[in-house]
């Protein structure tokens, strides 16, 4: 039977070193995908993933067992990725965005329509996301990656990003509109 995250964390705290390695194997791919969506570069995403697990290992004694391990881990990953972006000084903002990421133009737009199937197939094949994501702000990338990639709830995303539920929801909406717009431009 597969052991739960909390059981593995407990076992690690009790001196079983291999249980943390199981967590690495369980979440390694997801953290890597999330890191790639944020930093947009395979080598840096691997570094971010490695850093995430080392930080988690170091601070596992501070992890609140009542909370969700995945959420905690992704919060570390998000911070590591943002640190990497900060070092590169490549945190882009749209010309319409203010400092808190509110986009006056996007607020007035309606929700995006689905992309026609034949165009979507081309976009999927061309890995269009790879080109479109870097044009979004890191917060937007994080929300989209966690929502669509990890299929987390808005509440969980809010916990990871340290933002209120409503902020996450509106950020998700803005990110969707912007991404749809960028994909439409690519197609």
């Amino acid at each position, binding site marked *: 039977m597969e052991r739960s995250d909390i059981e593995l964390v407990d076992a690690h705290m009790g001196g079983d*070193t291999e249980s*943390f*390695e*199981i967590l*690495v*194997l*369980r979440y*390694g*791919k997801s953290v*890597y*995908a999330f890191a*790639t*969506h944020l930093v947009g570069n*395979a080598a840096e*995403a*691997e570094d971010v*993933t*490695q850093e995430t*697990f*080392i930080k988690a*290992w*170091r601070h596992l004694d501070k992890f609140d067992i009542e909370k969700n391990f995945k959420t905690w881990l992704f919060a570390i990953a998000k911070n590591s990725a943002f640190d990497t972006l900060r070092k590169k000084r490549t945190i882009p903002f749209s010309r319409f965005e203010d400092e808190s990421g509110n986009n006056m133009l996007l607020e007035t737009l309606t*929700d*995006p*329509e*689905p*992309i*026609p*199937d034949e165009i*979507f197939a081309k*976009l*999927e094949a061309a*890995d*269009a*996301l*790879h080109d479109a994501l870097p044009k979004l702000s890191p917060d937007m990338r994080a929300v*989209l*990656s966690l929502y*669509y*990639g990890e*299929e987390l709830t808005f509440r969980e995303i809010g916990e990871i990003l340290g933002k209120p539920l409503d902020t996450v929801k509106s950020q998700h909406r803005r990110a*969707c509109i912007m*991404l*749809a717009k960028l994909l439409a431009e690519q197609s």
Partner: protein
Amino acid sequence: MDMTIDAQFQALFHHFPKASEEGIFFERILFALREEERRRARSRAFGGAVMAFAAFAALIPASRELYSAVFSSGFIKYFSLLFSDVGSIGLYWGDFLSALSEAVPVFSVALVFGLFSLLLLGLRFFGKNMFIINSIKVHSHNFSAV
């Protein structure tokens, strides 16, 4: 049009960015973790060794101090009465016990016990972390098993 925009985004995000070589990617993370563990154990073992050494170094003069304090306080004289004058002690056991306890060089005894405990603690810490350093193994995982 079959897919909603949500489903389309989901499909795009599930179009997974692949790690360079999955096995190597995980091995690299696990190797970094083991290195980190080894580094932590090494610094803790060093801390334990320093603590044990410092406690041992301080224990020598503290033991000498205790030795002389035991003689100068008259503790030994009172204590030897136990073997030479049992009858009087049986009669005045209350006075004897209070005199004996007053003669105990409390500070020196506490110091020696404290330093001895620190020595044991340091040795334990050192031993435990040396064991961790030696037991961190280099093994390969079955990456598809989890």
